[in-house]
């Protein structure tokens, strides 16, 4: 009974989820000719924020200036709209299954504070890595793999390979 209350999240069968995700990738490629993505929206937000705070700085920087084009806001971007959709879709799914609520999910062995610090640090690393590799797990690895892109496969192997290598050092956080 105790297990039941703790493991109350009723998730889809992973094969079913994977199958639908695969169909969605085909559909996305069929309609738009490109794959899914996620971190692009965060980049667009960062560029927009920096551009608002200091336009001069953004113009001067070699990286921001790539994404600022005259009158068009960097937020007016395919990937940003897609990300809005992700938020809405996840919210619908969460509300159907009753998973909505402000909480911090962490292993009972670590404190809430530690979990948040690690989440933040992991986010920073992910942000840097996603820019260097030009994409994250969804943009580079998943969509890249769907079209047999060499870069996508390398990125996928690098992400999962390193994560397995370093899993031992972070075991306390999760198990």
């Amino acid at each position, binding site marked *: 009974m105790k297990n039941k209350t703790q493991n109350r999240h009723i998730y889809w069968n992973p094969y079913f989820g994977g199958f639908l995700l695969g169909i969605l990738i085909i559909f996305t490629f069929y309609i738009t000719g*490109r794959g899914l993505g996620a971190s692009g929206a965060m980049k667009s937000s960062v560029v927009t924020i920096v551009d608002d705070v200091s336009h001069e700085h953004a113009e001067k920087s070699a990286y921001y200036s*790539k994404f600022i084009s005259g009158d068009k806001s960097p937020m007016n971007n395919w990937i940003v709209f897609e990300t809005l959709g992700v938020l809405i879709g996840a919210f619908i799914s969460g509300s159907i299954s009753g998973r909505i609520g402000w909480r911090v999910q962490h292993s009972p062995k670590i404190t809430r504070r530690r979990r948040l610090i690690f989440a933040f640090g992991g986010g920073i690393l992910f942000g840097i890595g996603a820019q260097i590799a030009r*994409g994250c797990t969804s*943009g580079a690895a998943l969509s*890249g793999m769907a079209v047999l892109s060499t870069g996508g496969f390398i990125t996928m192997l690098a992400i999962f390979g390193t994560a397995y290598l370093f899993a031992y050092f972070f075991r306390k956080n999760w198990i």
Partner: protein
Amino acid sequence: MVNRKLVKFLSLRYKILAFIFIVLAGGLVLLPKHEKQEGISPEKLLANTINPERYISTDALAEKMINQDPSLLLIDVRNESDYKKYTLTNAINIPLKNILDEESEPYLNQDAYDVILFSNDHFHADQAWILCTRLGYKNLHVLNGGINSWYNTIINPKMPTEDMAHTEFELYAFRKAASMYFGVAYPEKVKKATVIKPVTKPSITAAPKKVIVKKKKKKLPIEGGC
């Protein structure tokens, strides 16, 4: 009873799914390979080939050139030495053997100009036309009779005999005027016998027209998915 069968079936469901996947993936390997058809289908090509609309007569071409029709693009498909000896005004040279080269594509695959292919007769030009039409290029025409016919009709037109129809005389008048436009001197005009010879205009070597390259529809996003 049904329930038990269902349970038995469901215990096998992953194996069945795995099997379906392997069959599907194996199907890809076993599918008969076929070369992807680039360009238009043979039936359509045949229909286009039968259609004589691609031929443009030397008179129509001369009229267009005199009117300085801006949509005209002349392409000489003979080899380079012939092109250097004589060609039509403002023509550019793409020898037949280079017709499928990448540099030739912007000139042939576009929709801003009416391309007119020509060679000595219309044989090589027709071959070039078929090759390009097969690739789905539009607005291609062939000069009927080629340069030979151009020479016989425009540069050196035959005087119609007395018993010919009135239209023939009109045509002759037009051709004569055209040949003067292209630089042929006539004895009765200049009172001096000159050998009629084709005159090459000075501005033939440089490609006269700035061809707008047809925009490839492929638009790559600056940044990939993520």
